[in-house]
């Protein structure tokens, strides 16, 4: 069904179920308890995870399959966001036209940048993409301010035309919606001391990301995906067989650019203010971190990486000394102070330190990313020294 094998189909269904149930699964701790700090089941974070999952899955099509490391993918995020906001300003607060345009613009710019950058390989390719992205960022921040809003960012304003919408009533900007369904609409379920928030915006992001995941899955299994893997294995040998590999590379680049454009568009749809910051090289670096942290070349890895980094960013940075003292208040005063002193450098303002350390640990000990970690734990639990497991572990000869 859906052009997938039985195993892939089950896999996809599990991903779909997890996405649908995320608001419940990510909110395991009762409200008001000390652990509630670690709940992640609120709309903004879930939306972000879904959006960055799309971005990372798209990036993985380029990096994971062909091995070409782009350091400039954040530019497509920015372009998608600006396209979205301009649609919200000019056409309608319905996100559909914006999403379509964002994807197309991401693809168009990827075609342009890819056409030039793909003439080189290795680190030269990386630096070319980086150069293009940094140029886009610098221009968007200063010279192109009339189009991009510059430092203050671009957002819908009261005076915008919005030709397809009715005139804005009573001095408020209408809400971003999908055929009338507001992206902010949230249904709250109070259950056993937990509040589950089912948010329309999240389900739009989540379902889209499952759909894009499905497309990537099809692509991975297709002859086209096989060709891209061949490029990663040995591009020279491929060229000797008489195949011109660059069109394949360019298609992969454009596809991943479209994924990024869509992610950028969604970002602006969930939160209609597009700033130039999301095009900076750090943002391009972040997606590389996500993919590698999760497991490059795997299907689920990039999704896990995206979730992990966004979770750390949003949860760890909010733990301040006040919270720490509350946690450790059950201990005697001296022990409480000692514990707070020890933990303090790693949370709140130090969350970057935690991220750096975790990241290094993963790169050093788990080169295959979190996915490999999961597999190792899985093997440990099964503890079956069976021949089958071993055969699967040894990689086929290249």
């Amino acid at each position, binding site marked *: 069904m859906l052009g997938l094998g039985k195993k892939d189909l089950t896999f996809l269904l599990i991903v779909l179920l997890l996405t649908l149930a995320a608001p419940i699964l990510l909110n395991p701790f009762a409200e008001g308890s000390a652990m509630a700090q670690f709940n992640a089941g609120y709309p903004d974070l879930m939306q972000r995870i879904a959006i960055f999952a799309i971005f990372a899955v798209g990036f993985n099509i380029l990096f994971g399959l062909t091995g070409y490391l782009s350091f400039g993918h954040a530019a497509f995020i920015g372009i998608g966001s600006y396209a979205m906001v301009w649609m919200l300003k000019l056409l309608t607060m319905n996100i559909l036209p914006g999403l379509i345009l964002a994807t197309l613009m991401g693809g168009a710019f990827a075609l342009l940048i890819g056409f030039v950058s793909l003439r*080189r390989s290795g680190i*030269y390719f990386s*630096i070319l993409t980086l*150069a293009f992205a940094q*140029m886009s960022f610098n221009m968007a921040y200063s*010279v192109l301010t009339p189009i991009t809003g510059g430092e203050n960012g671009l957002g819908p304003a009261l005076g915008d035309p919005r030709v397809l919408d009715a005139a804005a009533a009573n001095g408020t900007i209408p809400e971003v919606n999908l055929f009338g369904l507001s992206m902010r609409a949230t249904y709250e379920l109070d259950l056993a001391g937990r509040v589950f928030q089912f948010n329309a915006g999240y389900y739009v992001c989540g379902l889209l990301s499952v759909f894009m995941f499905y497309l990537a899955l099809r692509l991975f299994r297709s002859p086209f995906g096989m060709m891209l893997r061949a490029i990663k294995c040995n591009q020279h040998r491929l060229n000797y067989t008489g195949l011109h590999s660059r069109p394949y590379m360019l298609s992969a680049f454009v596809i991943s650019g479209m994924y990024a454009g869509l992610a950028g568009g969604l970002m602006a749809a969930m939160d209609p203010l597009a700033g130039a910051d999301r095009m900076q090289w750090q943002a391009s670096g972040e997606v590389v971190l996500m993919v590698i942290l999760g497991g490059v070349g795997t299907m689920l890895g990039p999704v896990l990486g995206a979730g992990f980094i966004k979770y750390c960013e949003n949860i760890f940075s909010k733990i301040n000394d006040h919270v720490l003292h509350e946690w450790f208040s059950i201990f005697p005063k001296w022990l409480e102070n000692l514990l707070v002193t020890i933990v303090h450098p790693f949370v709140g303002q130090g969350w970057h330190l935690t991220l750096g350390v975790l*990241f*290094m640990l993963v790169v050093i000990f788990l080169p295959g990313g979190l996915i490999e970690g999961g597999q190792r734990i899985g093997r440990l639990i099964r503890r079956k020294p069976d021949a089958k497991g071993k055969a699967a572990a040894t990689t086929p000869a290249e």
Partner: protein
Amino acid sequence: MDALILQTLNGLDKGSAYALIALGLTLIFGTLGVVNFAHGTLFMIGAFCAVTLQRLLSLSQVTIDPTKKDFLGNALKVKTPYIEAWFGKDAGAAIVNWSVPLSILLAIPVMLVVGFVMERGLIKHFYKRPHADQILVTFGLAIVLQEVIKYYFGANPIPTAAPTDFAGSIDFGVWMGFPPNDIIYPYWRMVYFLFSVVVIGAVFAFLQFTTFGMVVRAGMADRETVGLLGINIDRRFTIMFGIAAVVAGTAGAMYTPINSPAFTMGMNFLVLSFVVVVVGGMGSLPGAVLSGFLLGILESYASMNWIKDVIPGIDQIIIYVIAIIVLLTRPRGLMGRKGVMED
């Protein structure tokens, strides 16, 4: 004409910083084959050696002066640096004044140790791993080191002045027959430029004229054969890593009067220095130096008003434009070798 000379001079010292970082980066890449994303951080640590020395020198004895009040209305605590108590007021003040050049003496051993520890403790395990892994682990290390520095020194830039003897600027224009104030150039930037020339010269001389350097160059060309000859190339490469760290660190320490050290300065230089290295050609030492100065000077030219009038914002993107042009016309940068880092 005078504007062009002026901007060339400005470009030279900008270029010196780029060239010094790029040189170290290339040394590490050329010898160990490792892409070191933490190299900008080494530059930053060097700068903080200068800050540390300044702090150490101004460690003070605290006495309470009941005649004066602090902002809360309590008796004022007066600080006298120990160094002034030991060497007399004038000699002590002179030592504090010269803390930036003196910090080189601190930076060299510190950077050697940092370099060795980094190489033996971490990078060593990544020789056989893909370049992507090397980039990632050094990137992670850069984040960690940067955060540690921030934890101890704060996020704000810390003023570190050059010795007052170097305050002010030379009026070059007068020498060349231009009116006064036409071409001025600060003394300290002059010092920095000369310093970088000396360091670059020393590194090249070391590689060219010593046996150690010859072995290293041989190792860069063909590591395996040199190993087969019974030479312990690994140990020499470790030493080269230390030297590269020292180059970056002393460059950072001397740069502090130009650019007040802050924990972000490493990352600010990182991207730029990679562009410099790639434009020069991966693995080519002369290429790194050449492209460092070239990009520094072109960046200065781009900041001239009449050029900015023609192309607004050109100074924002000039470095990247040059990188794109160079890479498209010369596939491996200005002086790169074939087959290096192309897969």
